[in-house]
């Protein structure tokens, strides 16, 4: 199954985690359209990045939560996958129905979660 052409927007504030995620996504055939490591940048890109097929959002970035950016993406209809060390418990009620991957995640976790996300979105 080819995932060529799938484009993704990533928010992650830890350099090493971001680098690793970029590599995982690259190997899974996803193109990272843009990445943000701070909330203001994440909000700006969430509104402006061109037609992403999905977004992976680290919940806690630089001491604040990513939800303001998530709201912008949700309004644009972009499927969202949250990543957090807290697991689902770390999500407020507003986002409880969204998929979550628990840090630290493996490439297989990311692949499975994105495949489910695309199935649901399709």
């Amino acid at each position, binding site marked *: 199954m080819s995932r060529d052409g799938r484009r993704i927007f990533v928010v992650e*504030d*830890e*350099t*090493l*985690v*971001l*680098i*690793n995620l970029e*590599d995982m996504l690259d190997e899974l055939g996803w193109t990272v359209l843009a*990445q943000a*490591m*701070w909330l203001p*940048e994440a909000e700006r890109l969430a509104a402006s990045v061109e037609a992403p097929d999905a977004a992976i959002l680290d919940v*806690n970035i*630089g*001491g*604040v*939560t990513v939800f303001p950016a998530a709201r912008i993406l949700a309004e644009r209809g972009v499927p969202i996958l949250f990543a*957090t*060390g*807290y697991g689902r418990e*770390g999500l407020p009620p507003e986002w409880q129905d969204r998929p979550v991957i*628990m*840090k*630290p*995640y493996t490439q297989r976790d990311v692949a499975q979660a994105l495949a489910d996300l695309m199935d649901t979105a399709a």
Partner: protein
Amino acid sequence: MDEVDYERIFDALPSPFMILDRNLRFVTANAAYLETTSSTLDDLVGKYVMDRFPEPGESGRRLEQSFQKVAATGEADTLAYLPYPIAEPNGTVRHRYWTAVHVPILDARGQVEYILQNTVDVTEFARIREMATLPFSSLSAATRLMERTLEAEAASADFRRLFQQAPAFFAVLSGPTHIFTFSSDSYTRLIGGRNVIGRPIADALPEVVEQGFVDLLDQVYIDGHVHQAEGARVILDNEPGRPPQEYFLDFSYNPIRDSAGNITGIFVQGMDRTDAFRATQRQRLMIDELNHRVKNTLATVQSIASQTLRSTNDVTAARQAFEARISALAGAHTMLSDRQWHNTEIGHLVQKELDVFSSDKVSFGGPVLVVNAKATVALALVLHELATNAVKHGALSVPEGGLSVTWSESSGDGLVIDWVETGGPPAQEPTRKGFGSRLLRTVITGEMGGSMEMRYLETGLRVRMVIPRAAYQVQEALFVS
């Protein structure tokens, strides 16, 4: 006037009487005594009293002692409360309680000749007393009743005092408008010492109206259910001119009914749980924060492992590189934990990474500058990658090479770090972006939102990193939600 027939009167007395000689042998007994003890005079007369009514326990001993005391002293003695079983002819034993009065009857010389005993069966009183679990007293029934009433009043006052001083709070609201008729000390403290007695709650504590508490009271008053709440948030406007304060309370509203079953008021009771609630909240935040840090650290280690393994097929080299990177990360964490995970001084960070090199090859310096935890970890990794590169490919790969690291802070740029290698092989821009340069760029321009200039010169590598203050300034807030 006829001679009074004392013997007939003695026999007719409704209360049991008997007479012992000074050796405690029966002389006579009246009809009431014979009936009470299921005896005949023939059974008794001439018999030693303790043989006729043996009782091996405490009661028998007390009875005998009382007789002996009267015989020895010539003074009356009363046993106010004497449990004493009486055996009936059919063999059944009745457990009775007695009050016994022993009166000496003296002869002409003033010596004790007889002892008169009058006993009163107080079994019914004793049972009432037992049920009331109150100590027995030898007072009359009427006196005892008065005493009981006084005790009850004292107990009621005790209860009132208990309610008044209890750590839990209590208040009584009367009537459909919930007029305060009682407020315990702790309730009064809770509401900031306001005097509420005699006032409707909406008037006495106006801020609770729009928080829905008066509606709840109305409901309890109307339909009589008990309303209970745990950890309910209440805002109280306790100090005029100061912001209202937040409390968390466990409480209940219980309807008070009159004897006809009509609701006449509401009993309010509860506990101020604010401190416990805050402590739990704080603990939750700390656990969340710890969880976040541990998971992120694990994700970081996972990334280092995976990036290191990707970069080479040489297992030994990969292991050494991995260990060195983990060691750099661990060093940053050690510095942080030494300072309660708050922040570190940048000079210590640089020193930690460059201390392995001799000082004639490597120099570093700059102002004392404290950076936050996140910047500490990020800069430790950057310095480690730069140093590793210098040892493998740069100035520190040859004996004559040197390295200078300097930093400064300016109000415009923030933190500026200059990494200058000299005396080594000419620096060459790598054809393929390795992990080190990728890490550097992502940390400085992404994570820290700064800028970076890498110059590959004949004299060696020069790197200038400019990091805005927002990325490293020390924040006071330790916890985030």
